[in-house]
């Protein structure tokens, strides 16, 4: 299980780098899909990198979602899924190895699409 998780993350980062080499960015891909406001699920390293990439760009991160924590990070609210969640165009899941469970858990809590970061990167 642990090996799979790291392999998955390695592939994800490798794909992210490839996109950068091709001059494509996550904000461009999201904006291309008509997504302008998002929530990032996951406050791990990948979530933090994604927040970094979206800073001062055409897509706004309204809040972040985390399984265990509630607070603020980089001035952005961090919420748990059971709290009241403001509307966004999409929730992007950075904990890609748990995407299925997270999507199921969020299904009746948000009305927007719940998308895996993997899907965004491979679409680009």
């Amino acid at each position, binding site marked *: 299980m642990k090996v799979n998780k790291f392999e998955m993350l390695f592939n994800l980062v490798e794909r992210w780098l490839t996109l950068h080499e091709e001059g494509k960015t996550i904000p461009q891909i999201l904006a291309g899909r008509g997504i302008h406001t998002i929530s990032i699920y996951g406050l791990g390293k990948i979530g*933090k990198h994604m927040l970094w990439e979206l*800073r001062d760009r055409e897509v706004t991160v309204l809040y972040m979602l985390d399984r265990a924590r509630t607070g603020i*990070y980089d001035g952005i609210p961090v919420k748990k899924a059971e709290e009241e969640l403001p509307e966004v165009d999409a929730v992007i899941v950075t904990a890609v190895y748990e995407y299925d469970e997270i999507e199921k858990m969020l299904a009746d809590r948000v009305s927007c699409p719940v998308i895996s970061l993997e899907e965004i990167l491979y679409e680009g």
Partner: protein
Amino acid sequence: MCGIAGGNHPGWHYEKAIASILHRGPDGKNVETYQGTTFAFCRLAVQDLSVHAMQPMSSPDNLVHIIYNGEIYGYQKLKDDLKNKYQFRTSSDTEVILYAYLEYGKEFIDKIDGIFAMAIYDERVRKVYLFRDRIGVKPLYYYYKDGKFAFASELKALTEMLDDSALEIDTMALYDYLFYQYVPEPKSLYKHIRKLRPAARLIFDTQEKRIIEADRYWNLFVNASVGRKRKREDVAEELRGLIRQTVEEQLIADVPVGTFLSGGVDSSVITYVTKRLKPEVNAFTIGFQEAQFDESARADAFCRQQHISLTQQILSSKDVRQIRNDLSKWYDEPFADVSAYPTYMLSRLARTNCTVVLTGDGGDELFGGYAHYKTVASFGNKPEKEKVYQQYAKPASSVEDYRIRWNIPKDYDPYWHFDQYYKEELPVFTRMRYMDLMTYLPESVLTKVDRASMAVSLEARVPFLARRIVEFAFSLSQEEYLSDNELKGCLKDAYKGRIPDEILYGIKMGFSVPDHYFWRERHECNMNAGILKAQWSHLEKAR
């Protein structure tokens, strides 16, 4: 500690710039130019006193150069990791940073903790990198206009370095000052000179002559949860361990180290832990002739009980009057925290015996120690913001006259700075701690301590503001750090039975100065306006 300065314009006065801040580093100075970029440095020798640790320090191939003001802590593991590949010539932390940069690039910053402001010039990519520590203990200013770029530890070094034509007064920044007690970052007194924010990294491309990156390299997670999840004794034990580990790291120096002791909780904790690790430590305190402002008796009793050697001085209004006009000399722009005077006197006292002191700064912001937090909490959960902000400084009645004089638009909101960090989603005490951590702490408290101590070439270290303690403190829920609704409850829990209750639960004073010392400034109803009028009168006419 040291002073740094530099820039990319050949006509500027780098020698004069570094000479103006020699108080930061009286043990030697040096100016070098690499491909048109000049680095100037003055040294306060604290670790590795040999000439080999002088700066600018260059890589073995002479292509990467560093000047650095500060100390990094706990770097032994990083040094061990680098030892196989790099041959160390000194025992200074500067060399560790230099090789860490060579090994990891600009991300090396994630591997170090400490108090620092530094500049690295990498000839291979023709870029200057500026870094400032996470909380903003050490200062760094930069100038940028029309492709010209300069930086320095203090504003006075830039005003010496640059041509007068580059120095244009920013009246909007002056107007802001009236609402805080400092010019809020990133602004400075001058239009094109900015303060590099805490935890910021700035990259200047010397070929393209432009800033290509200016952003934070570190962010803090702030816990917004309510209720207690961790046991009170577990929090206390972990905190005690973190403080001990940090003080141990910060005691490393090749010169004498002492402590500042006000008689309050924070400085007593630091002094207590230091005594356990370094039994011969000296503590220093300042008292006032006015009994209601004087904590020196409490400090004295504590030191007798703990067998700590204490050096103290009692101040009178006459002592302060002798240095009353020195604020403008130390701070280079309007600054109205008058506890700078006793901090300066205390630094001067400590300097007779030490080169380094440990202080208790940061404890109030980390663990919720300010009494006005209770006042704000009494306003309800979502009080009017202006009411909260005015806990820090009530604007003087003359503020409208200044607005008109300086042509400030009527709809200008001077509270833009507080607004950035006032987060209503946080519980009220945590909200105030976070706002203070991002504003009042670096811009008032730490600025005050840095300039007042550096004015006498004394290095002040701040153990509470080590990364591990800051992250721990802000990971606690409101109930976890306010045990039994007691301000700084978790810190008091950690040292109960070790430090006397009179100190842990007594009335807090710090180094507050008796009001009547400043009767002239107080005529203005507000110290900010009073100091402006008394020490910066020429700025009142600025346009």
